[in-house]
Structures are given as C-alpha cells and as structure tokens.
C-alpha cells in the first residue's frame, strides 16, 4: 500500500517533470521568444527579457522575465476555449501545434477577433520607407512601416499599414516632447490604419517619396504576423528614438514570421530605418522595390514636361481657369492642353494642401477638373532617376586630411556621428539638404601638439529650390566650437542660423541667406557677442562631382568683422568613399589667411 502510494507519487512527479522538460525546450524556441518580444541581445536595455512594458501582455506573474513561466501559464490558460484564447491567437497556434491540440474551430467563441481577422487579411507584406523630405533634413533619419496587401497588385489603397509609434499627449510642449521621445518617456504602440492615410500623410502633406519593398514572406508567415498583431492591440512598449523605434519593432514582427533570419542578432545602439532596409536586403528578404513619387515630385515632372511658354500658361490657368477659353490656350493641341490643365490642377491642390477648404479654391479646382475631363486622357510623365535610400552612404564617417594654412602644414583627423553634408556623395539623398550631428576634427601641425580644430554639435541646412510652382524657404542652423580669428586664431563657441532662398537651374543651385551669429570667445569682452550678416553660394552637381562655392560674413556688435569664402569639390570614389578638396579664405579687419586641404572620407555603418 505504502509502496503503491509512493509509486503513484513518483509516477505523477515524473509525469510532471517530463511535461515540464518538454515545455522547457519549447520555451526556448525562437518563435516563442519572438512572440514574447524577448530581447535576444539586440539592444542594451532589457537584455534577455521582454521589451513589452505592459502587464496585460503576460499571463504569468514574472512572464516578462521568464519565457518558461509564461509558457506554462499560457498552456494552462489557452487549453480551454476562454477569453484568454481570444486575446492570444498566435500563442494559441504556437502551443496547439507544438503540443498537438486539435480543435477544429478554436476561436469560434471570439466574435471580436473573428470580425477583425475577416477585415485584416493579406497576401503580401511590404516594407515601406518614406524618404527624406526637404525642409526637414532630419527626416533623413527616415521611418519605416509595414504594409499588408489584400492581394490586387495595383489596389494598394485598400492595403493596411502597420505602424509603430510613440503615443504622445497633445498637451506636451515641443521641448518636453523631444526629451521624452529621446529618453523613453512615451509608451509605444502598434497601430493599424488604411495605407491610403499614410500615402496622404507622406506623399501629399509632407511631400516625401515612398519606397516600397516587397518582403519574401509566404501566406503562413504573414498570418503569423497578423495573428500576433492582434495580441499587440493596445499593448505598450517603451519607445526610444534611437534604438527601440519603428524600424526595430518591425524587425521583431519579421522575426515572428520567420524566426531565425538573424535580423536581431547583432547588438545595435541605433536602428536607422535605412539600415533596416539594407539588413533585410542583405538577407535576401526583399524581392521587389517600388518607387512612389510624392505629389510634389509628380508636379515637378509635369512642369518639366512643359515648354517655358506652356509652363507660364499653366501657371496662369491655375489662377484663372477661365483662360481655358482664350485663344492662346486653344491654339495648343488637345494633348498639350491636357498636360497644362493637369499641371495647373496639381499646382492648385499642392499649394493649398495644408489649408482649410475655401469655396474659391474648391471652385478653381473643380473648374480645372471639368476642363481636364473634356480633354483626352494622357499618360502622366513619370518621375525617374531617383536612387533608392539604401544606395546612400553610411551614417557615420571618419576622414583624414592634409593641408596648409598660412604656410604651416597640418594633418587632420575627423569623425562624424551622423549623417550627410552638402558635398557628401549625394546618391540616395535629397539634393540641397544637410544634417550633421557631432562632428569632431583634431588637427596637428609641424610646430605643435594635436589640437581640437572643430566640434560641431549640429549643422542643418535645407536649400529647397523655388520655382514657378513652389516658394519654399531655405534655412540653416549650426552650432558648436570652431577656430576663428579673434585677436589670434582661437577656439570659439558659436551658434548661428539664417534663412533665405535658393533656386535650381539644371545642375546649378544658387542660394542667398541672411544670417545671425552669437559667439563666445576669450577675446571678446561680452560673454555673448551677437552679429549679423549673410551668405551667398552656389552648388553644382554633375554625376560623381559635387561643387560648392560660398562666401559668408558677419559683423559683430563690438565692431569686429569677419568673412569666410570657400571653394570645395568632392568626388564620390564609391558609395562609401569620397575625396574632397577645398580652398578656404578667412578674412578679418587687417588680415587674412588661406587654407588648402585634401581630405579622404570614409562612410560606414
């Protein structure tokens, strides 16, 4: 009797242990870890625990730290049809498949889930990268979202967009917003919206081109993503701008679909969206690439297809659709009239895109549409020639240079954390846009020890060309430490910025800016000395060559005057290497210095 009892107890224990052994192995599977968003060592925070910062996501008390405990709790909770099973369809599928549960209709009691699942289905998954747009150079950092296509190739307006973003509060002011975004104060959530809203947001409102990359995921893998998305409904993650951002979270979804692709293997300090595209491409996960020009680019393509006379007429037609009845307009063949009318219409919609509706504009637009509809259907001119963002150079840079300043030879080493200046290899970047953060240059001369030459904290420039149809502002902001003349050549602390205009004629882009500067140095008596001035310059781009000629001057309140002129050229040796030569002349009241420099630049990461 006693032995019998002991035996029973032993058998029970053994059974439990064996089942636990099985579960323990299961709990180590990559897909289980992916479903729980366990950090495999991809970022520094929360290593080997879940990124999810939400108790609602876990069934076990320490589920976020313990995938095994979470699996045991999930097995217990999902075995019988209940509310938990409706919340975790992907988990259920994982466990049921692994443990051999057979329920022909496991979600029959889940009305909400079934209704949602019936409307959210997809045959194809596409990674979408809205490219940088002018007048917001920091958009060069980019964004990614996932698109789920219901099937029809050309009907992407009916697709879903899966977007991960910070949940912000409208009450926060901008500075606080920035701080919390960078430091992780906002929760991040997935949301699911019609893709056409994203087209409207990026392509229409923000004039950003979009690059769409079809992913190599089959139907079953896509279904994993969709089922798992339901589990993430209203679930909070931490949001960090640099690493745990939109792109990183999408990689986690791909890991759910295809565990073991290795996209999360390496430790990263930042997940730059364009690197996400690169890393998926390198692993063969991208099958096709599609370019969606913004409304602005489409308008430019229309405009470029017109002769100068036609363009002026189109511009006039936009203001007064009644011109359609004029002899000047009617003299053109119907196809040309169609192109002019479409240009005029697109222009009207473009310039008023951010305004409230007005009867006048609506009337103008409507009159133009009626005109277009009476003219033959013409093939719209295609915007071409843009290089995809992943063909651009790396985000970090080191450079070595040699040169001469006022008869003294020097050698120089530079490092820049991020990202692109006006002369860097322009393939894959918007022209006339620059964003630099944390650039350091150390210079060594024959006569002295190495010294800090420059520490640029920020350098943003945005030169958007003006034309008949668009009148954007060009502007710049720069700040940090640099060498300048103040009694002698010394390190000064400065912040400067300006605004003006720029134009484009073929490869030439002249610009003109009014500028203000605040400077602190050990020579000037005031702590901060303000000054005003201006800058004029010209960019020229042809193939691998990028030229810049510029001159800038500031007059300070203490009667100090200083100017700097520069001729620089960069030749793109390859995607990741460039050779730059420049002559710079700095002048001040009573003297000047000339500097020559030849620099080799290597981009990486």
């Amino acid at each position, binding site marked *: 009797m006693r032995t019998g009892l002991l035996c029973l107890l032993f058998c029970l224990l053994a059974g439990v242990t064996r089942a636990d052994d099985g579960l323990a192995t299961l709990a180590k599977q990559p897909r289980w870890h992916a479903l729980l968003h366990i950090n495999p060592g991809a970022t520094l925070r929360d290593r080997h625990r879940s990124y999810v910062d939400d108790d609602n996501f876990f069934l076990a008390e320490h589920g976020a730290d313990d995938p095994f405990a979470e699996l045991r709790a999930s097995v217990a909770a999902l075995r019988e049809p209940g509310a938990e099973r409706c919340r975790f369809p992907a988990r259920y599928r994982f466990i049921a498949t692994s443990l051999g549960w057979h329920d022909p209709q496991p979600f029959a009691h889940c009305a909400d889930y079934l209704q949602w699942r019936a409307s959210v289905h997809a045959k194809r998954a596409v990674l979408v990268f809205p490219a940088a747009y002018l007048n917001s150079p920091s958009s060069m950092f980019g964004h990614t979202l996932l698109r789920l296509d219901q099937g029809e190739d050309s009907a992407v307006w009916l697709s879903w967009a899966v977007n991960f973003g*910070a949940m912000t509060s409208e009450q926060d002011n901008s500075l606080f917003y920035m701080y919390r975004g960078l430091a992780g104060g906002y929760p991040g959530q997935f949301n699911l919206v019609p893709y056409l809203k994203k087209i409207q947001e990026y392509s229409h409102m923000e004039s950003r081109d979009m690059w769409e990359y079809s992913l190599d995921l089959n139907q079953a893998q896509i279904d994993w993503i969709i089922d798992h998305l339901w589990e993430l409904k209203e679930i909070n993650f931490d949001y960090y701008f640099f690493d745990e951002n939109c792109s990183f979270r999408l990689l986690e979804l791909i890991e759910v679909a295809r565990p073991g692709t290795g996209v999360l293997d390496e430790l990263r300090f930042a997940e730059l969206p364009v690197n996400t595209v690169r890393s998926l491409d390198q692993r063969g996960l991208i099958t096709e690439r599609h370019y969606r020009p913004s409304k602005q680019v489409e308008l430019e393509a229309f405009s470029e297809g017109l002769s100068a006379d036609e363009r002026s007429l189109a511009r006039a037609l936009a203001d007064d659709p009644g011109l359609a009845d004029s002899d000047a307009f009617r003299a053109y063949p119907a196809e040309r009239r169609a192109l002019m009318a479409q240009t005029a219409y697109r222009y009207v919609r473009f310039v008023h895109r951010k305004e409230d509706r007005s009867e006048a504009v609506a009337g103008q637009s409507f009159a133009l549409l009626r005109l277009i509809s009476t003219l033959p259907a013409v093939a719209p001119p295609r915007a071409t020639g843009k290089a995809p963002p992943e063909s651009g150079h790396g985000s970090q840079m080191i450079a070595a240079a040699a040169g001469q300043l006022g008869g003294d030879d020097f050698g120089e080493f530079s490092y820049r954390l991020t990202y692109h200046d006006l002369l860097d290899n322009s393939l894959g970047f918007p022209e006339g846009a620059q964003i630099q*953060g944390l650039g350091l240059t150390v210079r060594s001369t024959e006569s002295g020890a190495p010294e800090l030459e420059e520490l640029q904290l920020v350098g943003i420039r945005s030169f958007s060309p003006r034309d008949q149809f668009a009148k954007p502002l060009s502007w710049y902001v720069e700040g940090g430490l640099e060498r300048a003349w103040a009694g002698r050549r010394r390190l000064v602390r400065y912040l400067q910025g300006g605004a003006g205009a720029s134009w484009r004629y073929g490869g030439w882009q002249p610009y003109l800016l009014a500028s203000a500067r605040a400077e602190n140095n050990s020579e000037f008596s005031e702590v901060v000395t303000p000054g005003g001035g201006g800058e004029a310059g010209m960019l020229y781009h042809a193939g691998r060559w990028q030229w810049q000629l510029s001159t800038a001057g500031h007059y300070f309140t203490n009667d100090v005057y200083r100017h700097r002129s520069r001729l620089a050229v960069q030749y793109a040796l390859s995607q990741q290497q460039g050779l730059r030569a420049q002559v710079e002349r700095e002048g001040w009241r009573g003297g000047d210095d000339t500097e020559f420099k030849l620099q080799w630049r290597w981009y990486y990461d």
Partner: protein
Amino acid sequence: MKKVLLATALLGASFSVQAAAPGGPGCGWGNLLFEGKSGTGMHLLATVFNGSTGNATFGMSSGTNGCDTSGALTYSGESLLSMNGVLEEVAQDAATGNGEALTALSVSMGIQTEDRAQFNALMHQNFAAIFPRQDVSAGEVMQNITALMQKDQTLAKYV
C-alpha cells in the same frame, strides 16, 4: 513657432507640420475639394516619433469622417469614397481617366480586371454627370456612378 523650430532643430530632430482634425490621429487630410464640412485646424506636432495622439487605431477605423473608431473597415465602394480625401482623388482620376484611386474604387466594387478599362472610360466620359458640383457628397457620387453603370452593358452586372 520660430523658437520651437530652432529648439527642435537644435536637438537634431525633425519637425514637420501635421494637420489633424480634433477627432484624432490621421482624421484630417484637410482642404478637401468636396468634403468641406470637416475643416481641419492646423496644429504643430513633431512627427519624429511617428506617433499618434489619443488612442491608437487598430484596423477598426472608418465612418464618414475617417476618425470614427467603431465598425470594421469594409471598403465597399461607398465607405471608401467617404474616407477623407478619397473623393477628391477619385475625381482627379476620373477627370484624367486613370489612377490608383480609381483602381481602388473599382476593386472595392468587385469589378474584374478585364472590365476596369471600361470603368475608367465611363468615369472619364461622364465626369460632369458624376461630379455635378464642387460640394457634391460621397453618397451622391456613388448614386451617380451606380446609375451610369446600370445603363452600361459591361458594367451593369456589378451593381
């Protein structure tokens, strides 16, 4: 505004203008040619974090103003037209004779690939009948399209 711009620029973060109606994220692509009633107030919101304010929508957004979070998005012809900004795009495509908006509309109405050219032609030729006024509503447009399709040999089977 200037101050904010400078401050954000200094932090190296992007800054852009996003229009949103009071209803929530992505509700308003304002300035509509046809749907004038849902005027959108401009407000500045940095989109660096690609975030949204209020509740995240989760594939349950539809309704006439695009901000409603009840009811699944069915994408039948009319509900597609009722979404903010779509009517305007459909009108443009109808006037020019082709485009993605028109394709989406025909797919949502179940029109087969081989009949879409006919549908596009019908929309192009009858623009003035389909869009009689600059403030026509989505419902009227749908009625006008349906009426025309009923009289069309090829397209009658879809309505």
